[in-house]
């Protein structure tokens, strides 16, 4: 595959990415044929319910899990085909912040050790003084008071722990950061602080984010573009404003209508989906959403819809949504 196909401004370009897990003799389709791009300095919000494969996708993208098939172009080069040296360089440029600030930090390490760890592993500093200076700068960047440098994770609240997780991800000066549910374990007042921090960092340093979350309101707040995942596949993708104002996929509409709004007098017609998400193990042919879709037709259970651009920048995978003539 030649590399010049990727437009220069797309920091990340994912094509036909698949990740299957063996479950006994069956296959669990965690990520199934996902494609999207993220322009440099932008945030793609990836929404979906638990088990839809969004976290797996994030891990495959930065190489924590091996892809079953597909391509991940990072700055125009296929990251899945990197050699050892390129891979270690990629590791520095693509980092991840985990969901659970309790289990993602080694409980035996102090704040200093935790933040210094990536610097030491990747030998980016010449000596200990340099490491300790860098740690202090990083702590300042994420708003951790220097007096906490000798503290241990169990002595800190969730918000501060998550700041450690962010400082650690920033330590190697990455360009791209996967944020895997970075605020869902935090209380609302702390959540706002962390979201503001992430927004400030992006504005100041031009980071590119893949923001994974189940919380539509949070995604709405942070994203430039939003992709909705259902059972391993992207079912709709559009710019933030379009997706939330004019969702076309029935699942997106149901998802949006299900979010409780903290205000009175906003009476929306709630679309209650029936049943549960089906199992991702050896899924049935056809549209994955067909079993819960009230608008399904015959074709939906036999043939999976492709993700097509129905309007400029608005991609939908649904047989019932046709491209607008003359626009796409």
């Amino acid at each position, binding site marked *: 595959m030649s590399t010049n196909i990727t437009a220069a401004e797309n920091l990340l370009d994912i094509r036909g990415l698949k990740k299957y897990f063996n479950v006994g003799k069956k296959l669990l389709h965690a990520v199934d044929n996902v494609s999207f791009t993220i322009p440099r300095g932008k945030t793609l919000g990836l929404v979906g319910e638990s088990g839809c494969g969004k976290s797996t996708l994030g*891990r495959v993208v*930065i190489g*924590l899990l091996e892809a079953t098939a597909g391509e991940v172009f990072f700055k125009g080069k296929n990251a899945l085909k990197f050699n050892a040296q390129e891979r*270690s360089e990629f*590791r*520095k440029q693509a*980092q*991840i912040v*985990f*969901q*659970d600030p309790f*289990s*993602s*930090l*080694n*409980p*035996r390490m*102090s704040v200093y050790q935790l933040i210094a*760890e*990536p610097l030491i*592993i*990747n030998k980016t500093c010449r000596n200990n003084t340099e490491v300790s200076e860098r740690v202090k700068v990083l702590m300042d960047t994420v708003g951790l008071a220097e*007096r*906490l440098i*000798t*503290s*241990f994770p*169990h*002595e800190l609240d969730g918000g501060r722990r998550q700041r450690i*997780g962010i400082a*650690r991800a920033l330590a*190697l000066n990455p360009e791209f950061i996967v944020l895997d549910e970075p605020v869902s374990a935090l209380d609302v007042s702390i959540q706002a602080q962390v979201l503001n921090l992430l927004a400030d960092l992006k504005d100041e340093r031009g980071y590119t984010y893949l923001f994974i979350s189940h919380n539509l309101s949070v995604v709405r707040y942070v994203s430039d573009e939003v992709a909705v995942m259902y059972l391993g596949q992207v079912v709709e993708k559009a710019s933030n404003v379009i997706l939330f104002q004019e969702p076309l996929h029935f699942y997106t509409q149901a998802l949006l209508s299900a979010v409780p709004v903290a205000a009175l007098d906003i009476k929306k017609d709630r679309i209650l989906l029936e049943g549960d998400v089906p199992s991702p193990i050896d899924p049935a042919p056809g549209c994955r959403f067909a079993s819960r879709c009230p608008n399904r037709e015959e074709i939906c259970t036999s043939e999976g819809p492709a993700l097509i651009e129905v309007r400029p920048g608005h991609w939908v995978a649904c047989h019932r949504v046709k491209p607008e003539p003359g626009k796409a």
Partner: protein
Amino acid sequence: MAIKSNSLWKLAFIRLRRNYLAILGFIVLFILVFVAIFADQISPYGYEQQDYMMIRQGPSAKHLLGTDEFGRDVLSRLIYGSRISLQVGLVAVAISLFAGGAIGAIAGYFGGRIDNILMRIMDIQLAIPTILLAIVISAALGPGLFNLMVAVGITSIPRFARLMRASVLSIKGMEFIEAARAMGASHTRIILIYILPNCMAPLIVQSTLSVANAILFAATLSFLGLGVQPPFPEWGGMLSAARPYLRTNAYLSIFPGLAIMITILALNFLGDGLRDALDPKQKR
């Protein structure tokens, strides 16, 4: 606001300090270690020193705990015996801890086929009654202190291997291991810096309790005549030698028995205390 930072180890120590039984156990063990080290200075007589005038004499001012059938001072023999018991306990546990720990860590971390092979070997060993296994090993290696330690050590390898494997498996699934991989840490670094320190707590507890077990087991083997040979004073051996005189000179059995009991009790108190301190969630 002053920041007082406590690592998990330090917190465990603070909790341990509040447990009186554990502290008692620790003090008893400390005295025991002291006695073992300074046996030469403390004991009133040598362990082989015989007094033909005083054969099987009960406790007296001259011989506080009496004398045995060769006229040797029981107290002195118990004091020297503490050396052997502690040595057996510590070395045997060290053997099973390192062998079992390594086997368990490898099986747990790498998983798959290696895990399967190693753990089935451990299962096979577990299926053999430990006392038979120890007798066979001692018989094959011949009697003697070192062979005794090896025999006792080998028998508890599977217990440590299983424990280690279970802890490694639970730690391996934690997100911070994934975080370490995302930073580019190597396997060695992940095992040494991330997994091992987090697996130590159950191993420390198990080791403490196992020392008690090993001492008891060594006493059993010596009692059967497979352990330390006379004239070396081993507590189990002393018990064995005292058996013919159980009805006439009960003190000959009582004092070594008490020595074994107090040591084991102290170790168990400490072990229980450590477990509560290191793993507060598992409090009963």
